[in-house]
């Protein structure tokens, strides 16, 4: 937006205007061709506008957003010394930035501009009620003018960004993100929980569709990470706490001791004498390792570590030092302690990766009861040359090569008994595995039992056809049950071939369950630390599924890889580079401007009670225990407004969405025929957009409703609703995002509580609770919005003058807290 100097001058202009001349408002009513003028009388609305207090000129024009229209506004600002502009046209979600830019160019602060939505919310939804639509448009303009009168110029603050990044997770996504940022010149901390980076990609044998050796293509990247001058690699490390906000994160990392010093040359002498044997996690428990071990041959860092839980020295006494004795460099140190490191970074990329589904609960498949029923990850380790069998595909029961194998698809995916989503990779993984078996053990018969084969990516269909050509048998019909022959440990699969409508019984030597992917079990910890929302399935939620796929709703934190959802290596790498690019944008700019809609706390009025801090979804309010004053961390504040209604002392101001501005809109609405109107509070991201969508879809609904926009439904203070009833308004709708989908993480849960309290209060006062309605409406639910309004219309029709009087009586102005009268003069910013 504007540079500081220019904004300064604008402020002075604006303030002078307010103080000396009062508001000088220009109103522009747009025809939008016939879109608006076709259903309501724009000329009449403009004429009406010119009669409102503070309006010095009111015009109607064809296309206000056109160059010509914008020029008109600009020249009017200069010529007529306008200090407020109201455009009555389409939704602000479309053209607010356009008109704001025009104002700024003419020397007017962007925050002195207001829009009235008379298209999506009026002309398009009341196509057959010209009079009703025109009256509504007049009302909407009146409300906007009332608000415009009270708007204040705002200055956007800038926050510096630390040019260092934290990457959480060292799988292929984390590796790629770290390399991209390090190559771009930033210092990167790569924090990995395990002893080596590499993640799942290091475990698998070959990749699809190229049949590349996985570790062969990954190892060079891993090495690069290990040697890169800009990357500080921290393995056996976990994030303990994260404080701060975009550009300024303070991260505490706990580094577990390796018990092996940096002198280690990776010679391997130490492990031979170690007496402790444990299941090898990297091999999914199919082989053993010692207490002192290296996760796998290509580990980065290339060094050993001691798993102290299985070492005989775990109680602090050196009971066994065979590894130390065997080591020529004597680089084993049992006394190492964990380290705590404090890092300051500007951006964080979360790449915590995935776990596989454990199919034990699906008892009909016999996993863990039948030795020759294995998962696809276990299969990867078996055929991997670095795995427990040196790459030989052998049956766990008798170590012979299976003469026939069956792959079962969709195990732990697409099911309400496990995970409802499709895990993306299992179809292609099975096809790749089948081709590997074909290649090395050409006599082994291969059956793939499937419901659908998803071969959607580049080269995928080709691979599928190759598998079919090479004789892999695809049977459509998942087995109902697996039985085991207790002599041979072979397995019988019983099911139905749906394409032939015939039952089958296949005997195979080995069954591979193509298991789905789940988010890593400890990602819940990361989620809590970073306040990241996740979907019901546990994967982290992106800021917008289409347009911001690697951003999280929290500024400065990005996602990549399977942490965001199941995907293959190509997509993980793509996302990692995308996330690195997004982080790069922030860090390259060096600073970020914060939209001037944040909360401000008046230290004079604040009593340090902390109620506001408790509801802030971003932890952006800090209460000083000593001075008993709360302050808002501006850069962390997103302007949701959930804090404001919590304050009983009127200490919080929501810039650009102040209490008296909203109350003025309600006043304007209630001036005439209040008892026949519906007031609707809609949140910018969901329900307001839902109402817009109604308009776009031309879904018609009653014209009695007037919408007041807030950024979040959490902004809606119960006193606004009470004020509305005190002014005789018939019905009020409070609407916002669905619970769990709130744009501000969970601010709408406060809305729910407040409305519940209002209902109880209304019941106590003998008022009809149905006059207040709560609805969660998403941006796609245009139909739903119209249904809510229709429901409220019925209330309006049935409401009696006595009921209206009762409301006015019950919530009369004397009950408003002191200092909150809507006519109060503008507050200092």
């Amino acid at each position, binding site marked *: 937006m504007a540079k500081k100097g220019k904004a300064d001058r604008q402020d002075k202009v604006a303030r002078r205007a307010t103080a000396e001349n009062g508001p000088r408002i220009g109103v522009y009513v747009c025809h939008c061709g016939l879109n608006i003028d076709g259903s309501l009388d724009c000329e009449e609305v403009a004429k009406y506008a010119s009669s409102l207090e503070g309006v010095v000129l009111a015009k109607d024009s064809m296309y206000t957003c056109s160059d010509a229209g914008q020029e008109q506004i600009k020249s009017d600002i200069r010529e007529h010394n306008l200090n407020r502009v109201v455009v009555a046209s389409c939704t602000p979600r479309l053209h607010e930035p356009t008109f704001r830019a025009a104002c700024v160019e003419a020397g007017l602060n962007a925050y002195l501009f207001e829009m009235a939505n008379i298209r999506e919310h009026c002309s398009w939804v009341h196509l057959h009620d010209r009079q009703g639509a025109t009256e509504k448009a007049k009302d909407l303009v009146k409300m906007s003018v009332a608000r415009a009168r009270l708007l204040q110029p705002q200055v956007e603050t800038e926050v510096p960004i630390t040019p260092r990044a934290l990457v959480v997770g060292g799988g292929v996504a984390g590796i790629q993100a770290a390399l991209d940022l390090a190559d771009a010149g930033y210092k990167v901390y790569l924090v990995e929980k395990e002893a080596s980076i590499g993640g799942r990609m290091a475990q698998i044998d070959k990749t699809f569709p190229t049949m590349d050796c996985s570790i062969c293509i990954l190892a060079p990247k891993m090495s690069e990470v290990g040697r890169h001058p800009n990357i500080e690699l921290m393995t056996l490390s976990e994030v303990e706490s994260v404080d701060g906000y975009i550009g300024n994160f303070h991260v505490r990392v706990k580094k577990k001791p390796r018990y092996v010093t940096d002198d280690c040359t990776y010679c391997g002498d130490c492990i031979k004498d170690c007496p402790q044997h444990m299941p090898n996690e990297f091999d999914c428990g199919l082989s053993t390792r010692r207490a002192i071990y290296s996760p796998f041959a290509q580990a980065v860092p290339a060094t050993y570590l001691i798993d102290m839980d299985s070492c005989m020295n775990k109680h602090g006494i050196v009971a066994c030092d065979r590894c130390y004795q065997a080591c020529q460099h004597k680089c084993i140190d049992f006394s190492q302690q964990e380290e705590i490191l404090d890092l300051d970074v500007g951006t964080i990329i979360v790449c915590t990766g995935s776990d596989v589904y454990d199919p034990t*609960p*699906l*008892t009909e498949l016999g996993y863990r009861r039948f030795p020759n029923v294995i998962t696809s990850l276990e299969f990867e380790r078996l055929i991997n040359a670095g795995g427990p069998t040196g790459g030989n595909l052998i049956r766990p029961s008798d170590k012979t090569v299976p003469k026939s194998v069956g792959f079962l698809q969709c195990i732990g995916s697409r099911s*309400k*008994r*496990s995970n409802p989503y499709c895990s993306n990779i299992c179809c292609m993984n099975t096809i790749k595995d089948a081709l590997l078996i074909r290649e090395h053990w050409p006599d082994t018969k291969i059956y793939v039992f499937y419901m659908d084969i998803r071969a959607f990516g580049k080269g995928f269909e080709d691979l599928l056809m190759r598998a079919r050509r090479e004789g892999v048998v695809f049977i459509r019909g998942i087995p109902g*049950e697996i039985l085991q022959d207790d002599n041979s440990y072979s397995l019988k699969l019983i099911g139905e071939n749906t394409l032939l409508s015939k039952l089958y019984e296949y005997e195979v030597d080995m069954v591979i369950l193509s298991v789905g992917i789940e988010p890593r079990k400890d990602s819940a910890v990361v989620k809590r630390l970073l306040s990241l929302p996740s979907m019901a399935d546990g994967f982290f939620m992106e800021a917008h599924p289409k347009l911001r796929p690697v951003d999280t709703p929290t500024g400065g934190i990005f996602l990549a890889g399977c942490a965001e959802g199941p995907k293959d290596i190509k997509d993980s790498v793509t996302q990692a580079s995308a996330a690195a690019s997004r982080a790069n944008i922030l860090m390259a700019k060096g600073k970020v401007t914060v939209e001037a809609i944040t909360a401000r706390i008046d230290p004079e009025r604040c009593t340090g009670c902390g109620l506001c801090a408790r509801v802030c979804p971003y932890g952006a309010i800090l209460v000083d225990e000593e001075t008993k004053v709360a302050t808002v961390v501006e850069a962390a504040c997103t302007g949701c407004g959930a804090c404001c209604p919590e304050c009983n002392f009127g200490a919080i101001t929501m810039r650009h969405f102040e209490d008296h501005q909203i109350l003025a809109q309600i006043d304007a609405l209630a001036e005439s025929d209040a008892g026949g109107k519906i007031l609707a509070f809609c949140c910018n991201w969901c329900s307001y957009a839902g109402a817009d969508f109604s308009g776009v879809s031309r879904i018609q609904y009653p014209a009695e409703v007037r919408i007041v926009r807030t950024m979040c439904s959490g902004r809606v203070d119960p006193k606004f609703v009470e004020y509305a009833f005190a002014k005789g308004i018939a019905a009020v709708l409070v609407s916002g995002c669905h619970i769990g989908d709130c744009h501000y993480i969970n601010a709408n849960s406060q809305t729910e509580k407040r409305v519940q309290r209002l209902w109880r209060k209304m019941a106590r006062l003998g008022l009809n609770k149905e006059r207040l309605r709560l609805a969660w409406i998403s941006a796609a639910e245009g139909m739903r919005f119209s249904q809510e309004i229709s429901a409220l219309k019925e209330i309006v029709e049935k409401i009696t003058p006595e009921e209206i009087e009762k409301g006015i009586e019950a919530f009369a102005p004397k009950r408003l807290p002191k200092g909150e009268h809507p006519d109060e003069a503008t507050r200092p910013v």
Partner: protein
Amino acid sequence: MRYAFFPGCMMPVKYPGHESATRIIAEMLGIELVDMPFSCCSAPTLLRLVHYESWLALAARNLALAEQEGLNILTVCNGCANTLKEAALVLRNDPALKKKVNEVLKPWGKEFTGEIEVKHLLDVLRDDVGVEAIRSKTEKTFSFRIGIHYGCHLFRPPRIMYPDRLSPSKHFLPTQMDEILDATGMNPVQYNRRLLCCGSGLGTKVDLDAANQITREKLSHMADKDVQAICVGCPSCFEQFDRGQVILNRKENCDYKMPVFYITQLLGLAFGVPEEKLGFDQHRTKVTALLDGGGR
């Protein structure tokens, strides 16, 4: 422990010996059984498929009868357990439906409010009596290999029969008979398709030969594991295995010799109850060879 005793239609008519065994065991374990003029539960394999409303109304009548006395119901048949549990659950969860059904019962002075519970004998034995009490009453034990057949209606669908005990994959795996027989020192063994249906529901409706094919599948898997005796908790399953074996041996030249026992008969043997009170003479597949010969 006091229960309204729901014997069902099959056991008292076809296998009164099982009823006798059950009553004796109940007395030994401190379960008081109260008789009431119950009608057919009615069967989930029959009336429910013909006319759901009638099935529900009859079930509600039986439930109301027990509720009048303030007693929970103890059933000895999987089908009865299934019907009565489902009816109770459906009526409890749907107030409108409950109202309708109670209107049908009203002229007869009956009403079901949903206060009582329905339990299969196996659950009463395992949960209320407890395996320790069973262990302490055991005087004799037998080592013959027992193939337990739980049957289907005992625990499916799990959301109705055991809604509080679902696994993460929303299944319920029954273990009552295993635990009870373990407590007596007997020898239940695993076999493939242990949770497969006996086939009774098909035989009684349409085609006994086809039903026997299902039974045959079960018997062959049991034979694969050298099962010597079958233990069931339901008279319908009992009949299917007991009579089914005889028919299969005759018609299809099979050679199955696995006597079938109802759970309380085995408990009776373990507790030292005289054999004549346990009703073995009603069995088609003779038990004498097993009991006289090896296995003791």
